């Protein structure tokens, strides 16, 4: 693993570095948290049309969404033969199908007769029968039946096999690629599986899945979740207990990672908060309330939080006593190009951002929580779609993060609006703290130039 070739020319926050913070841990810290990797990324500005222009969206469809590996669903959502998820990306639609035991295929969700979508929604099917005239395919994609077959002497069965997309799996996720000539998924993921060795996501179950359409470009939305620089402006209440501007950012191949420490004060604060104030800020305690949890004498807020998390995870994580404070307290947010955001350690969050149809001003944001479990695998949560006017607290299963998402979402539509109103030509990124976004755009530029 490449390690800290730290380019000394880069300015960093004067606050405590993440690597320094790791020295205070009460348990051994896994190597993955020590790994660092910088890359020279020339992109510091990108044109605003990238977020607003229909032409750019069309280019993304052709060169990105129809060419790149993308997360379609969880394997646990399609356990039985015939189970399928309808995965939609821009105007394309796929049936991601458990076609046989141990086999998953993805079919373009279009009848080869007159073009109706074969499946309207997720479900289980014994065969794929078009609701319009009844043309039917078997689960392996072979044309099985045409009503009034005598009328179609010109239809050769072997040429009417359902077109397929490529399928790959990792971490309990099913990935698809619409390009039949694409390289394998493993090439795309690169070293990512090594990062998740300590936290195998295939051994989690999807406990929460909430989806909502947002009035902004999909990149505007996901870029709001790729840095901690916005915390001071957007989530000021978190500052006493979050290492925002001293977060650590690294990039490897097609993925990047941010680490934001919790239970450490923001370097932006003028006065150092007490350990109790750090904990209260994370637990969102009101000034006129008793603390929900007290930092015991001789302990730090960080240790207190880790201790509480260990208790909560006892039932589901076997060796939780050996898990480091860092893995229980901090945020490790990965971005796998182009739109898949699994979090490391025990944060459990996974985000996915997609365009909604062909409108560059609309996107779909999804939040999943992947929870550890012991014993029998619990059933995965179905998608909970929020209405366009609902706020995130309409999904109480999100817990306290719903309110944090409300603060983020408060900005997003106004960002999109502002980008349309802009007289300047480019958005400008921070050199270090917006590393992940710059890395994404460098990959996007390379992808679109192919």
């Amino acid at each position, binding site marked *: 693993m490449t390690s800290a070739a730290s380019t000394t020319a880069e300015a960093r926050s004067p606050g405590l570095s993440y690597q320094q913070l790791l020295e205070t841990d009460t348990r051994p810290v896994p190597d993955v948290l020590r790994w660092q990797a910088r890359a020279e990324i020339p992109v510091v500005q990108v044109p605003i049309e990238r977020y607003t222009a229909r032409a750019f969206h069309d280019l993304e469809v052709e060169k990105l969404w129809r060419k790149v590996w993308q997360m379609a669903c969880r394997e646990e959502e399609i356990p039985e033969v015939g189970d399928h998820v309808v995965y939609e990306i821009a105007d394309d639609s796929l049936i991601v199908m458990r076609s046989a035991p141990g086999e998953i295929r993805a079919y373009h969700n279009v009848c080869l007769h007159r073009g109706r979508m074969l499946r309207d929604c997720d479900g289980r099917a014994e065969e794929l029968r078009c609701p319009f005239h009844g043309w039917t395919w078997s689960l392996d994609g072979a044309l099985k039946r045409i009503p009034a077959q005598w009328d179609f002497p010109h239809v050769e069965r072997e040429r009417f096999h359902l077109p397929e997309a490529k399928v790959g799996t990792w971490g309990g996720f099913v990935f698809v690629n619409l390009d039949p000539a694409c390289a394998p998924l493993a090439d795309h993921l690169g070293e990512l599986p090594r990062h998740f060795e300590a936290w195998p996501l295939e051994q989690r179950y999807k406990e929460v899945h909430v989806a909502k359409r947002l009035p902004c470009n999909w990149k505007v939305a996901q870029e709001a979740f790729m840095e901690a620089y916005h915390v001071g402006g957007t989530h000021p209440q978190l500052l006493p207990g979050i290492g925002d501007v001293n977060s650590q950012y690294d990039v490897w191949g097609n993925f990047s990672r941010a680490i934001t420490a919790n239970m450490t004060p923001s370097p932006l604060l003028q006065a150092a908060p007490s350990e109790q104030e750090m904990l209260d800020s*994370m637990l969102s305690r009101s000034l006129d309330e008793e603390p929900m949890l007290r930092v015991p004498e001789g302990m730090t807020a960080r240790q207190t939080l880790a201790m*509480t998390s260990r208790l909560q995870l006892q039932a589901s994580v076997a060796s939780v006593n050996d898990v480091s404070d860092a893995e229980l307290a901090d945020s490790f947010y990965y971005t796998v190009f182009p739109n898949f955001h699994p979090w490391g350690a025990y944060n459990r969050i996974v985000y996915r951002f997609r365009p909604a149809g062909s409108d560059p001003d609309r996107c779909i944001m999804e939040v999943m929580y992947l929870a550890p479990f012991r014993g029998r695998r619990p059933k995965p949560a179905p998608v909970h779609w929020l209405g366009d006017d*609902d706020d995130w*607290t309409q999904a109480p299963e999100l*817990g306290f*993060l719903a309110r944090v998402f409300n603060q983020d979402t408060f900005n997003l539509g106004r960002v999109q609006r502002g980008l349309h109103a802009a007289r300047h030509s480019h958005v400008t990124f921070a050199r270090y703290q917006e590393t992940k976004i710059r890395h994404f755009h460098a990959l996007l530029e390379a992808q679109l130039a192919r």
Partner: protein
Amino acid sequence: MKLRHPFSRAIYESQEDGLVRVEEEGGRVGLFHLDGRWHSGELRDADPHLIGWVGGPQLGGRTATNRIPAMPGAATTPPRPTTTVPKPPTPAAGADPNRRTTSMDLGLRGRKAIVTAATRGIGLAIARLLADEGVDLALCARGAAGLEAARKELEARGVRVFTKALDVGDGDALRGFVREAAEALGGLDLLVCNASGGAGMGEKAWQANFDVDVLHSVRAVEAALPSLTSSDAASVVFISSTAALEYLGVPQAYNAMKAALIAHANDLSQALAPKGVRVNVVSPGPIYFDGGNWEMIKKAMPAIYERALGQCALGRMGTPEEVARSVVFLASPAASYVTGANLVVDGGFTKRVAY
């Protein structure tokens, strides 16, 4: 909720009326809407993100119990109930973003409801609670002034309110109102038939109770049915009375007509179930509020008042809000499997065994 801004050091505090109060260290104070717009006060600019955080819906904050407004007039109500409102669930702990809250979502946000006779007492309490749950309202009553006051108050709770002054005993006027209401609100999910002809003696009372208590409910359902059947959460609640259930000391049209209403609700619950419309009844016992019947009885016939009070097993009369909570629950998608029920809300006033 009350927090100090980490940069400006100003105190942000949510207010009962849904605004957020911001006080700077220098003493300047401003009130702000949840989206950050200034409302009033000397301080005119504050951080919208912290306003949203402090004033935004708490987790579980949309459950009915947490959003009951302070009861107007409750302070002067003699047998003031000790608060029966359960504490809202504690917001989920930050350490575990997965922790589920125990809140029960009534599923009412964005729904549309008609409430008849909604300018006072139980009807107004129902309208207020529905508004707090985010339900758009169509209200009718006889007095235009009362309707206007109710409309102003309810619109301030952030919902659309359509009103029309009419006598619900007038079939054509009532049917017209229901049609216009569904049109104005863009659909209809809930219908609460709350109007009553009141107590009285003689044939005039029989006619009034038949026209208002019974026929207005029958007609309102008929007129609302085309809209209700297009809803995915259609529900009707009739307001009956414990007077229909036990002998009250005087034979009255009110009692018999309220009983008819329960029987008709049962018929409708069976007949409309295939169309996805639930029909239930709430039968309140003695409900005390300023300007209500029991206030009058207390002044004019203290012996009757005392006897009724003595009969309430809970030792007090009920409040309109306590009836409203039952009505709103039964009307809501949270009661999706309840139909044909008669929920008695009487603090133990009736003594029969309700099998």
